[in-house]
């Protein structure tokens, strides 16, 4: 159990936010268990599984990730600079400080917290040829490359649209906000940071055919009574139990 929980520690909260997948699924899709001892008294609970994963722009539940981390594949350890508070969210306007698009501003499209990476929409791109074969010369597409949040990008202050260093501070009502160090204004977290693959924002979620209706889910039907669950169900179904239990011993 301990191993799997350490596994999950690597997948950043903001990297998996957009996919809206349950943690247990991410864990299950990512894990590569080679051998697990049977649940028998003569075995200690042990697993042999892949512990070091190489994270890149492929999400841990995709086939490409599995291809990168196929069994037996070893990779060099990647040192990632620790960050105290993640401060780049989906929909944030950022300025690029390095590379061919230096000085340009764009919106954050994707977050890879495991590598301190973000992808800025339409900037820092590379040409890639796809669908090339004998009869077709291929199509070239612009592919965005990831940028390091520690050194290659900077948040943009919305008051003067200039890049700035930021700091996390508390407001008087206890809310944690990002403050531009140059102007001292608050940089609000964009609404798009709430967006997931299923909805733009939680309020705009469209119910799917398999979902419970909101009113049904919120309806309070619980009536407190001095009964256990089983007694309540038995009463309701008219099951009567007259047998008296024998005395027993627990050990």
């Amino acid at each position, binding site marked *: 159990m301990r191993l799997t929980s350490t596994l999950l520690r690597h997948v950043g909260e903001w990297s998996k936010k957009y996919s809206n997948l349950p943690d247990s699924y991410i864990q299950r899709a990512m894990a590569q268990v*080679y051998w697990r001892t049977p649940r028998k008294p003569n075995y200690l609970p042990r697993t042999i599984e892949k512990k070091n994963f190489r994270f890149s722009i492929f999400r841990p539940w995709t086939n490409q990730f599995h291809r990168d981390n196929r069994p037996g594949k070893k990779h060099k350890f990647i040192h990632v600079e620790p960050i105290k508070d993640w401060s780049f969210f989906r929909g944030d306007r950022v300025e690029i400080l390095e590379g061919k698009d230096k000085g340009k501003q764009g919106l954050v499209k994707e977050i890879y917290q495991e590598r301190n990476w973000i992808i800025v929409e339409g900037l820092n791109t590379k040409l890639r040829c796809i669908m090339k074969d004998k009869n077709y010369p291929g199509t070239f597409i612009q592919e965005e490359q990831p940028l390091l949040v520690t050194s290659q990008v900077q948040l943009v202050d919305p008051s003067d649209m200039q890049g700035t260093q930021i700091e996390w501070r508390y407001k008087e009502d206890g809310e944690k906000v990002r403050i531009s160090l140059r102007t001292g204004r608050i940089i609000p977290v964009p609404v798009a940071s709430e967006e997931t693959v299923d909805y733009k924002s939680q309020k705009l979620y469209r119910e799917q055919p398999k979902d419970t209706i909101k009113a049904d889910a919120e309806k309070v039907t619980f009536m407190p009574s001095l009964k256990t669950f089983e007694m309540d169900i038995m009463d309701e179904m008219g099951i009567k139990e007259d047998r008296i239990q024998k005395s027993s011993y627990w050990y």
Partner: protein
Amino acid sequence: MKLLKPKNKQLANVVQFHCSMEMTKFDIKNYMEKIYNIDIIEVRTRIAMGRTKKDQLQGSIIKEDDRKIAYVVLPKDQSFVFPDLFKDAKGEFDEEIMNESKSKDLQEYVKENKAPGLPGWFRI
């Protein structure tokens, strides 16, 4: 409890299930009758041994888990045929549509530029 597709030819009124190892014939009968409202004549079970195979990577011998398979016999007048779930399934991207769009793209690209005041070879 899973409903399995029979590997071999089977009588029309027999359905195969994969159930947990702890379930007995009586458990399975009650389960089907009470939860799924299915009439059952008889239940037979067997424990299918997991296959033993060689691990590709390490060369070690690995045995898959055993599993309990239940054959549930329905009344004579009933029959169950395993449905074909992928009859009109479409792939992630259709090969034909893909090729069509590819050739269209190519023709678009090769076509002469019709923009006014610009030479035919000019591209944006």
